């Protein structure tokens, strides 16, 4: 108890000091019941550093983690986005995600224009991050790094958009687990002791269908007229709990059921600490569930081009924890428990698969669905394919409604063996209510036996394609200011309310390559050398010797021995 008091006192002191420094911390949890009966919980933690890391030398850190601040200054980072994800967001049954990430690890970084050798900084940065987050980010090298031209734009304040300062890499094979979560939690000002982060217990988080944690660092405006620059660290964690494995087949959810914890107090360093529950429901299911404990705070937030109603619990409200010692938000369904029928497909989704048979060639197919009833919109597709699948760009076909669809922008960088991957970026117009099929042929390369990973017949992971799209909104919405609105709606800047930005990822692919026999390098070396020696030997023989009439008088050693044996046998000699 004394410790808690100490923390509170410190918090008061810090708040007093931060009156001048102005650093702030906000935390937020969003619970979204999904159409399939599963539930998505999205944590957002936002730490703001009110100093410009680019200009001044910051030596004193309060809430902002020092380790990241130093990395930003050292490697002149403009923006950093890092994702660790396990599982795949099923857009078809779960609806559109707030922030999707591809399975494995994904890292994209904008460097400042003062950087001369971007590749060197990138290499060092990936190794540093690998240490900070206990991940295999050091496997990021030139064979999986690309420089997209249009798919990734800076999300924060930026005066440069020269894409040569951008590096993007994914590691689809990366396995995410608690060793990645612990360093991530340590970046929070309150750690995982109090506040919403106390819900993050590894044992429950990794027992879920989808788990994605991310770190976003970007410069933002400190005030509305943007005279000063602050740095924002946004840590976000999304987890989807399965109705059958976690909820025992019932759609009733509570914080305790999900995390085996309840919220007992907010982080004392936070200036905002809220729990949002998506209570707008879907269509006919409206008001089919009730949220306990009841809250009379409701907020309308524009999400995915729609006004959504959220029940809000403000944990910092004085006296909030006086009535009850802890907060266990629960959703209770009134209607029939399961099966609300086939969910309505989302406006935009995509899927990808490999077709063909055998280990020689294959086709990568991407299906993109535009379910908007009357609006066409363009989509930017980014494909990164490793060099060992040799893409043939002349076989690229894009077919919409049975007709050839010509991309209005295409950027292709072919792969170099053992050096860099293929990069294909295209801008494709999607007509309303349409399915677009993109297919491209590839050839599977035979690698050197040392280049195969352990268990080569498991296959090789191909990173997901990235679809960036500006979707027209159903309603025209006005956007709120950054500081006041909820965190989950403010990651992607939107210029006006008529459309909203979304980035989707398709499934990663698993492709088999032909393999040599790993057990017999010695045999192969010996046999091939023997054949070469047969060639060499027979030519050497013919080149160096001459024809001669055999003279029977001279015999070799063999003949002498033969004659000796013949004499012993009593047979006339040769």
């Amino acid at each position, binding site marked *: 108890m004394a410790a808690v008091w100490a923390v509170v006192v410190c918090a008061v002191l810090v708040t007093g000091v931060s009156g001048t420094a102005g650093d702030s911390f906000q935390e937020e949890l969003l619970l979204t019941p999904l159409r399939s009966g599963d539930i998505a919980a999205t944590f957002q933690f936002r730490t703001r550093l009110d100093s410009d890391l680019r200009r001044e030398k910051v030596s004193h850190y309060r809430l902002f983690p020092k380790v990241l601040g130093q990395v930003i200054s050292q490697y002149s980072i403009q923006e950093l986005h890092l994702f660790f994800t396990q599982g795949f967001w099923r857009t078809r049954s779960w609806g559109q995600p707030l922030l999707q990430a591809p399975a494995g690890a994904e890292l994209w970084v904008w460097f400042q224009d003062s950087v001369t050798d971007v590749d060197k900084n990138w290499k060092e940065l990936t190794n540093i991050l690998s240490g900070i987050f206990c991940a295999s980010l050091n496997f990021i090298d030139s064979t999986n790094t690309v420089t997209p031209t249009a798919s990734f734009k800076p999300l924060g304040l930026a005066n440069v958009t020269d894409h040569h300062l951008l590096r993007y890499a994914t590691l689809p094979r990366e396995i995410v687990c608690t060793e990645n979560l612990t360093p991530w939690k340590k970046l929070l000002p309150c750690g995982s002791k109090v506040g919403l982060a106390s819900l993050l217990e590894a044992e429950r988080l990794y027992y879920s269908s989808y788990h994605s944690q991310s770190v976003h660092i970007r410069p933002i405006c400190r005030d509305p007229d943007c005279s000063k620059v602050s740095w924002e660290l946004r840590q976000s964690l999304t987890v989807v709990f399965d109705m059958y494995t976690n909820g025992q087949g019932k759609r009733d959810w509570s914080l305790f059921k999900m995390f085996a914890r309840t919220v007992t107090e907010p982080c004392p360093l936070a200036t905002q600490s809220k729990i949002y529950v998506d209570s707008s429901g879907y269509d006919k299911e409206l008001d089919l569930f009730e949220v306990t404990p009841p809250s009379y705070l409701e907020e309308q937030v524009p999400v995915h081009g729609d006004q959504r109603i959220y029940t809000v619990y403000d944990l910092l409200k004085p006296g909030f924890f006086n009535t009850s010692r802890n907060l266990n938000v629960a959703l209770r369904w009134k209607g029939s428990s399961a099966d609300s029928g086939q969910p309505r497909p989302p406006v935009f989704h995509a899927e990808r698969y490999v077709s063909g048979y055998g280990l020689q060639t294959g086709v990568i197919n991407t299906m993109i669905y535009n379910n908007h009833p009357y609006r066409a919109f363009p989509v930017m597709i980014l494909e990164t394919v490793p060099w060992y699948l040799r893409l043939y760009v002349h076989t690229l076909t894009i077919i919409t409604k049975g007709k050839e669809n010509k991309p209005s922008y295409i950027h292709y960088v072919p792969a170099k063996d053992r050096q860099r991957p293929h990069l294909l970026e295209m801008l494709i117009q999607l007509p309303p209510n349409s399915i677009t099929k993109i297919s491209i042929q590839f050839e599977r390369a*035979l690698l050197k036996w040392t280049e195969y990973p352990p268990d080569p017949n498991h296959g090789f992971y191909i990173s997901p394609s990235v679809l960036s799209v500006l979707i027209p909104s159903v309603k025209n919405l006005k956007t709120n200011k950054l500081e006041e609105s909820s965190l989950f709606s403010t990651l992607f800047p939107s210029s006006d309310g008529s459309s909203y930005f979304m980035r989707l990822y398709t499934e990663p692919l698993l492709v088999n390559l032909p393999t040599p026999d790993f057990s017999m390098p010695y045999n192969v070396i010996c046999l091939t050398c023997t054949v070469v020696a047969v060639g060499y030997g027979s030519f050497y023989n013919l080149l160096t010797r001459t024809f001669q009439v055999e003279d029977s008088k001279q015999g070799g050693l063999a003949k002498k021995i033969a004659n000796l044996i013949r004499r012993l046998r009593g047979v006339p000699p040769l």
Partner: protein
Amino acid sequence: MAAPLVLVILVAVTIRAVLFRSSLAAFISERVEVVSPLNSWKRVVEGMALLDLDVSPYSGDVFHETPLIVYLFHFLVDYVEIVYMFTDVLTAVALYLAVKEYNKVSFKQQKLYLELNKYSAGSIDLLRVPTEMHYVPLKVAIFYLLNPYTILSCVAKSTCALNNAIIALFILATVKGSPLLSAVFLSLATYQSLYPITLFTSALLFLLQRQFIPVKMSSRDFWLFTCQYSSLFLGCLTVLICHSFFLLNSWDFIHSIYGFVLSVPDLTPNIGLFWYFFAEMFEHFSLFFVCVFQINVFFYTVPLTIKLKEHPMFLMFVQLAIICIFKSYPTVGDVALYMSLLPMWAHLSRFLRNIFIVSCMLVVCSLLFPVLWHLWIYAGSANSNFFYAITLTFNVGQILLVSDYFYAFLRREYHLHHGLYLTKKDGTEATLVLK
């Protein structure tokens, strides 16, 4: 003589036209035996597609053709099938004319040697007669045009057919005794695939022989002609390479073509010896063995030139075969070229030791290639070793074939000078051995 040749050409063109129209064409053009990363048509199309996208075709590792080919097909892409059929016909006609001319030359030479009494009296059975030589050019044309290997190569639109045409024209120009054209075609062939540079000495020797210049270190004419021919060759090569540079405005193609041929980064299976060897090689020995294997291809030139300096045409044949066996990305089109020259050496058949076994080996291997490929890649019931074993056997067969011809050639030469029936000092029949 022209009528049978026209007939053969018509038959060959019909077969190719039918195959081009059939569904087999797509299947054949994916076969690893027929196309290699260097000459596959799919990659030529890819290179043109990259040019259309304003991407240098050499910035990636898919396209390894020369800039001239990509620009040639940029204009001819709509008539590509006709171009390939025409190329094959051109090769056959060039070989036909070359062999016809060579027969004349060699007959004259034989007559001269007889007059000079260089041949033994007992070798009269070995002399070549016009009736036997009459059908050799036609046989060569037939061996080229109707060889299944050539047909497959043509239907797959492998640019190997173009290289063969250039080499055939080079042989024709050399046999006709034109140093300029010979140097031009040799430099074109070298520019296309690098390895034909080893044909330089044989062409030089042939041209020297035609101009009655003795191959002597002390002879001034010899050095003069050698310098003249090599400067012609190097000049043409420089022009070609500079021309390619100006077409694309970059030197990338040098590394992308010749670096690719020499360092063997692409291990796509083929009928050669390199792919599996370097897939299984220990990394730190890789460079060493690449050097050894590449030196192996080029090195045979020196001893062969010394041994066969009187017989440049046979030297050329052996060189073509060695290139085909030991090059980094061989295809059956290369095999077809030197095999089509076999009828030229039909008079050696008396001395061939194991031609039947070798022919059976080559035929069986050719049939087993697709079978074992299917088992490995599609059925999954065999592994890479099966296909590898067949490539080994096929190459052993080729080596035995060439060394057998070489042996027979040397033996015939010996008999020509010492008589066909050799006797010992005591009058009994003697046997001939290599010592």
